[in-house]
């Protein structure tokens, strides 16, 4: 179905949320660049007219761009984050602490957790946004919760 999308308005409406999401995935210093790369790519592909949910589409684009970011340019950072995660448990005190804890999850798991908890998206919308099945989302969410339960501790210390 071809629809008319007011891309400018969509961008203005969602860019702040996208940047906050990207901050969780890649940190504050590259969040803007990741969002811009993601959005620009979708515009360049001229694919928005075929999308029903532009917001979800851009969240997926940011997820994929963040995954590329981790894979290609900042493997060292990811390694360090994973290494740090092994020793990061208990209550996070700083944003860096929080991101280190989340870095123990895969990008897809981070995406599932973020969209489910922060934006209260239902399973089927998360699944549609990430182009996987509902069952996959449930499994990823369960694994992510298990991991976060371990790194956060029981919270009663």
């Amino acid at each position: 179905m071809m629809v008319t999308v007011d891309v400018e308005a969509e961008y203005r409406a969602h860019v702040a949320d996208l940047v906050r999401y990207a901050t969780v995935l890649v940190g504050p210093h590259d969040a803007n660049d990741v969002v811009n790369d993601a959005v620009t790519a979708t515009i360049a592909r001229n694919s928005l007219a075929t999308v029903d949910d532009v917001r979800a589409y851009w969240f997926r684009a940011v997820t994929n761009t963040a995954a590329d970011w981790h894979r290609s340019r900042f493997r060292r950072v990811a390694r360090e984050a994973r290494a740090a995660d092994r020793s990061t448990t208990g209550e996070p005190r700083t944003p860096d602490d929080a991101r280190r804890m989340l870095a123990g999850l895969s990008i897809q798991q981070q995406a599932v957790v973020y969209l489910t908890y922060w934006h209260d998206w239902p399973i089927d919308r998360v699944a549609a946004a990430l182009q996987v099945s509902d069952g996959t989302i449930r499994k990823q969410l369960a694994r992510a919760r298990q991991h976060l339960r371990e790194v956060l501790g029981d919270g009663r210390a």
Partner: protein
Amino acid sequence: MAEHDDDLDRRITDLLGLAQHDAPVPAETALPRRHRTGRWMAAAAAVALVGVGVAALALRDDPETVAPVESVPETTVATSDSSTVTQSSVSPSTVVDEPSDCSAPAVDNYDMFGSMHTLVESTQPLDVKIEAFDAPWCPGGTGNVRVTITNRGVGQEQPDPIVLILNGGFSKYQLVLDPEAQASPPVLGRGESMSMTARVTLPAVPPGSYSLQLYGFGPGTEVNVSGPPACNTVDLAAVAGAGARASGQEITSVTVTNRGDTACFLGRPLSVMATAPDGTMTASPIPFEEGGFFILDDPRPSRVLEPGKSTMVVLTTPTNCPGSTTPTYWSQMQLWTGPQGNSNVVVDLGPDNRVHTDCGLALSGWAAPRPPG
């Protein structure tokens, strides 16, 4: 799906909130396009802050403006065949020959700047050469640059307007160019080049080594911004004075002292977090207005703090907050003055300072404490 666990759910939500608390302001509120750069992170808002120890209230609409940049850009176009470049000036030009200037206050234009981000790297076949003159440069000072762009492609190319970025890795800052130097460069044919020389003004960036780049990526030239390093949290002692009330405002003055052995650079607060008496920290930064000033003293968004010397900042919150029935009075506030998170000013609020931020918070600049007596 995992079993229901309200406590875990709450803590995951808190974790996500904390992880994004320092999210930057979106670089664009309009659609990005190639080479488009971010807009200023924060424009100075109309701010009214009360001076310490006085009952007067001062208002100022725009606390700082960028000083005019005395630059005379030189634009020349060189034409060439595929291998040899022959310079041919197409317009009268004047070479900037003023030396760099570190004497100007290093802070006056900081409010007009912030970290910024570039977008998509150009695919244009342009060679870029950037030269910086008259080192060392200093925060808020001026310097001279020359930018040379050569079209190495086979067709005509239109370079985007010149945007010079100081890239510090974690933060990027745009330099102020003379308006004339910001005009669109000419269309360059195959093998043609253009050069532009201009005087630039630096924002009050933390001293250190930066890469000076066109548009914020690609080949650049190293620029050392001289000055002391950013202040470290462990070297900063912050003491909150007794709270005061005037003109409908709760006023808390905080004296910050450099306990270290060397001078350090204290940037303007970029983000504010707070801790409640039960030890919980805010999950997201507290919005605040900035740009206020002391009536009698010299307010600066950032300053160099010598060993043993002090500076002050004023926290102001409205006295009347009708929408807040059970506010949380903070026991500690953290003023983040750098992107690394290790240059925070940690303020323990005494029992006399009943600071809550339900109805807003304003921060003054860094001011020199008034001399005793």
